[in-house]
Every structure is written in C-alpha cells, then in structure tokens.
C-alpha cells in the first residue's frame, strides 16, 4: 500500500534556535506584537510503500532516528496518511 508520511523535526526545548529568535525579533517591526516562543524546524514529506500503516510508521521512525533528525539537538513527530 502507498502511504504519505509527514515528518516535523524541531529543535529540542532548551536548544537555542537562532532562526526562531530572528523571526521573533522581526515580527514586532512588521507590526505583529504578542508573538512569542517562535521555533523553526524542518518539515519533510514523503511517499512510501508498506504493508500497513504501522509498518509505514515504524520505517519512517527508523529513518528519523538514523537520518532525518539529529537526536542531540532535534526531536521529531511522524504523521502517516
């Protein structure tokens, strides 16, 4: 079966996020106040073949552990469709 996997990889809490900070700093300049805790990460979408959803999820989780995320600084979340 064909599945779509949506992976979001975000900087771990506590790990400084310069991109997020830069955006947070720029928003007020553009007139957007009251915005905080901006975090910037990656969004990865892919198609894969698998026998069933749980197998699909398991393979994508493996890919994240091995390649898509760096456990020292990033955490990830997988959604299968």
């Amino acid at each position, binding site marked *: 079966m064909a599945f779509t996997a949506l992976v979001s990889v975000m900087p771990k809490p506590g790990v400084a996020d310069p*991109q997020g900070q*830069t*955006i947070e700093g*720029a928003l007020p*300049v553009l007139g957007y106040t009251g915005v905080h805790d901006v975090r910037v990460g990656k969004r990865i979408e892919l198609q894969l073949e698998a026998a069933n959803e749980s197998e699909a999820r398991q393979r994508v989780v493996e890919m994240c552990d091995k390649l898509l995320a760096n456990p020292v600084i990033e955490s990830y979340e997988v959604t299968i469709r």
Partner: protein
Amino acid sequence: MTTALSLHRELGLTDEEFQQIRSELQREPTHAELAMFSVMWSEHCSYKSSRLHLKKMPSTGDRILVGPGEGAGIVEVAPGVAVAWKAESHNHPSFVEPFNGAATGVGGIIRDIVSMGARPIALMDSLRFGELGDAPTRFLVDGVARGISSYGNSIGVPTVGGETGFEDCYADNPLVNVACLGIVEYKLMQGRASGAGNKVLLFGASTGRDGIGGASVLASAGFDEGSDDKRPSVQVGDPFSGKLLIEASLELIRRDLLVGIQDLGAGGITCPASEMADKAGSGMHLHADHVHLRQQAMEPFEIMISESQERMLAVVEPHLVTDALAVCAHWGVSAEVIGEVTATGKLEVEMQGETVADIPVGALTEQAPLLDRNRRRPEWLDELQKSPHGGGPPDDLAAAVMSVLASPAIASKRWLWRQYDHMIFLGTIGPPGGDAAVIRLPDRETAVAISTDGPGRFCYLDPYQGALLAVAEAARNVAAVGALPVAITNCLNFGNPEDPAVMWQFTEVVRGISDACAAFSTPVTGGNVSFYNETAGRAVFPTPVIGMLGVLESFHSAVGTAFGRDGHQIVMFGSTDPGDLGGSEYAKVMFGVVAGRPPKLDLEGEHNLHLLLHRAADAGLLVSCHDLSQGGAAVALAECALAGHRGFSVDLSDISPGGELHAALFSESPSRVIASCPEHHVEDLVQLAAEYRVPVRVIGVVGGGTLDFGPFALMLDDVERVFEDTLPQILSASMDR
C-alpha cells in the same frame, strides 16, 4: 487552444518575425518550432539589437586565444598558461527571487567557464541596488548576498571581489552581474558538434518546467490554469549538482572523451544543440523523449526550451559513449544519449516517433533578426550637462569627509564579502578590500589581478566619456596592485533598446569601451548585454560593468592598499582638476546633485600611469598603492590608513591649482593613485614618473593615530567605526525568510 497567429505574439515574436519563420520553413511552424524560435530569436539569445555594434569592439591581440562568441574568452597569461574570463548578468531573475536569482546567476557563469575546458577559480560580483532607505531594497541586498554566498561557497569557487552601488534608478531594476575566472586545465574545448553519427549526450540535473517563457506560453498550450504544477516556476539553484557537474565535465575533458561541449542556459537544449551544429556545419537529430524529466507530461516544446539548471550538452564518438556514461555515473550525474549528429544541416526533434521540429540550423542562429535600431541623443542631456555639478564647499570639511565615508557606496563592503568564501584554492593573495583581487594561479608563480567597475552616474551624464572612465578605472585598479592590464570582459546593462535614447546611450558606451580598450591594448574577450532594465518607463543609468584582467609575472610583486610603516613617504601620481566634481560621490552625498559633466580623461596619460605602476611594483619600489576613484583623495587616503591601522599627515593645499581644499579632497579626476614607500625609494619613483611623463609629488608622511589633512584632522578610530559599521547597521534590519 489559441491559434498559431496569436501564439507567436504570446511567445514574444513580432508579426514580421513570424512571417520570416514561415518563409525559412516554407510552411506553418509547429508549436515546438515556434517556441524554439522564440527563445533563439529573443534579445537575450540573439543579441539582435546589439550584435551590429558589438562587432566594432577590438577583440584581437597576441594574448587572445579565443575571442567573443564562445562560452568565454581565453587569454594567455604566461607561456602555455591560459585563463577563461567572462561576465554575465542575472538582473531580472534576481529581482523576482533574490536568493535563487543570484545563486543561479553564479551557476550559469561557472558553466560557461567549464564549457571551455577551464576550472573556475574565482568569482566577482558587481551589484547595483536602490537606496538602502527602503526595506524592500535591504531585503534584496540580503537575498542576493545569501544567494551568491550559498552557491559560490558550496560549489567551492572563491568570490574574491566585486563592487556595490546604490542609486534610486536601480530600485526596481537591481543589477546582479557576476564574472568568473577559470584556468584551462587539460585542453581548450569548444562547442562543436562535428562528425555525423556521433552521439549527443545530455548530462546533469533532470529537466522540469523551470523558467519556461511565461504563463502565457503554458496557457497557450491548452493547460488547465488551476493546476499549480503546470505554472512555470523560478529556477532553484542546486550547488551540489553544480559541483558534481563541474567535476564530471572536467574529467570527461581530461580523459579526452568529448568532441565538443556546451552548457545549457537561456534557451534550454535548443541553444547548445543549434549553436554546436551551426559552428560545425552539421545537424542534429534529437529524441525529446530520451530527456530525463523531473515533472510528468511535459510537452515537447517545454522539453526543448526548459531552463532547468545544472545541465550540459556534449558530443561523443559512439565507441566512447560507455566510458563517458561511466564518468558521469562515478560523479552521480545522470546522463542520457538524446540523439546524434547528422549531416543534414537541420535540427530535427522527434517525440514518440513523431517529428515535432525540423528546422534548418542556420534559421535559429545566423538568420536570427539583426536590427539597426533608431538612436537619438536625448534632449534632456544638454540641460543636465549645462547645469552645475553641485560640488560646492561644505560648511565643515571634517564633517564632509565623515559623511562621504559613511555613504553606503563608499563604506566598507565587509558585510558582503565576509559571507563569501574568498580564500579557497589558497590563491587569494589580494583579498577583498583592495583595488583589484590578486589570484595566484594554482602551483605557479604567475598571478592575475581582476577588478569590476561600472560608474553608472558618469555614463548617465555622458555615455561615451563614462565608458572611457569605466575602462580606465578598471585598468587602474588592476595596475594599482602591480599588474599589467591585458584584456576585459564586460556586462552592458541598459534600458529598453526600442527607445532611441537608450539605443544612443548604448552605442556611445560601446564606442567609449572600444576607444579605451584600443588605447590600453586590452581587447574585449566577450561579455553580455542586458536590455530592458526598466520599470514603468524608468530605465537604469546606462551601466557598463567592465571586468579587467591583469597579469603579474610573480605574485611576490603584488602591492596592497595598506600603509606599511610610520615615516614612509606618501606620494601622489597624476594631477587633480578641481572641476572634476560632476557626478561625484561628494556632490551626491552632500548636496544630492548628479549633474554637470563627468571628469575628463587623457587616455594616453592614463595608460602611462598603468605602465609606470607595473614597472614600480615589479622593481619593488612600492609599499602600498591605491587608486583614486569615488570620494577622491579623501577616501583613498582614509582607506590606506584603515587598511594599515596607522594614520598620516598630508598637505593637499597645492595639488589642485586654483582649487579650494574640498575640491582637492573630493575631486574624482582619473589617472591618479596614492602610493607609499621608504624615503630612499622616492627618487627612483620620481625618475620613473618622469620617464612616463606622469605628474608626481610627495604629499605627506605615514604615521600617528590621526588622519591629519592640515587644516583639520580625524581620529583613526572614529573613521574606522564609521567606515566599518555603516553597512552592518543598515542591513542588520534585513530578514532571512
């Protein structure tokens, strides 16, 4: 489905051109044929408005191995050592999408160099933006800088210098010109499709709908508007594929596996296919369905004109195809044989066994329209030239020097060049910050010096005179580091050629470049023309960017701008005309005036200065040397002091006879440099100057913590703060998307 008649208009072809196509073919063109004609006959590919005039530029010389008309010009810089040197513009794409526009501009010029069999070893970027007051302009500057940085750094070619200017006229038409230097590694290649029966190899990135004509082209192909996937998309730079493409191409050349090679740029596959066949007097038969596609259901016309990046077309003898494919595979570059060379003199394209194009090669190349457009000197120019240059005395000289140093055009460009890898290859003897970049050739004593200059304001006030000054400044920058100027490339940025005033500016500039290059014996090795740089009827200043190439027999004799030791004598070569304030940075910064006439230039005197400096550097007489340009003596002296972290005291009171001190400080008279040397070298320098009939005088001495101009003095630290902090402060506001 639109009819063929309106389709040609949507493709940007005139009715006359459409008739000409019909008679070339003796029938109605197919959709694919029309699309192929539209790109090959476009201004960008055919140079239809400029060809006639460019022919007049001097392009031959003992050192010129390959002149204009190939991927890049080739210059012999030492016995048996040849370099490729070429500039390209990517103005419009950079305005639409600064990051990718600039990045793909770098990729494009690099592939031009590689297509000659040369390894790219240095880049220079010449940039023009609107005034930095506007947020959109700051966003553009940031995006362009990141684009050049991300592509050039990743592909591993140092960006060693450039220039950056700010004028209102560029606000909606930024100029992004990039020049690339390469060294011929194994053998000189040329784009030739010789030998009927030889195979045509397309290698590099896959082909998508990148940068195809415009939405109308696709609409006309009967697409359902809704589907995003069908819309033409911006070209995205892929430096990683670009790097692999360079290595694969150079290895194919080193192993002698290619008959000919040409890069794919504007015009997609159609351009190299027709040009290589044309130059070899052969033909080509291509299978559009053998092209490796990135997107589904692409029409034949899309495949033929797609401008997807990072691709090359090569001609290979049948028995070498396997080896060639193996080389590409090693580098992870995909490659397909998409056709073969024929003797038909035609470019035939088939898709699923059906012929979709069958065009006499010449019809796409030589037969392309050649226009002698109307030109007329604009009425407003007399007014402008008659009006005063506006460079009157300031209330406060010290404050005036500070204001000029704080002008973004003058202030340090470190903010830009620290984002560029300018050190890779261990050849950058003269890094960004000096007059010209000095590049030691890999594992050699020989070095080359390169500089890009394009004084748009001067060309606006007087296109011919401005062009002379552009070539003169570029040559002077190269001579100031001790090199002998030998050849130029150029990028001519203008408005709409259908406007007689713009066309007049263009021909005047070409005349000026020709005269200056003849006088300096620096032939034109090639270049690029960018027209239609205008928005809402407002054109940019005529901006010819000159890329000068100079030669140093030994990198050891290279001279920098930094004052070296306290007590060294400061010498000024050349004479200062207090009237040379028209179009000056001083007049613009202090009084907001750009009017009058640009500085006068004595071609012979300028040339003599170049020869003198080359001799003096060779003889090791100079500790530092810096040419005078924007901002005049005040800025040049300040830059020498900042570079050397030491002050000076000078007396400029008598350098400009009959002039006031502000004129001596800010006049932009050409043919001048400021040098420093130990006392015991002064006599030799004076003798050399006499030999070359160049005026010379000692104007002061190096040392101390102040810039002492006599009547007033500035603290070195204050000057450094202004010079270094201006751009970072203004641009820190720019945002990363």
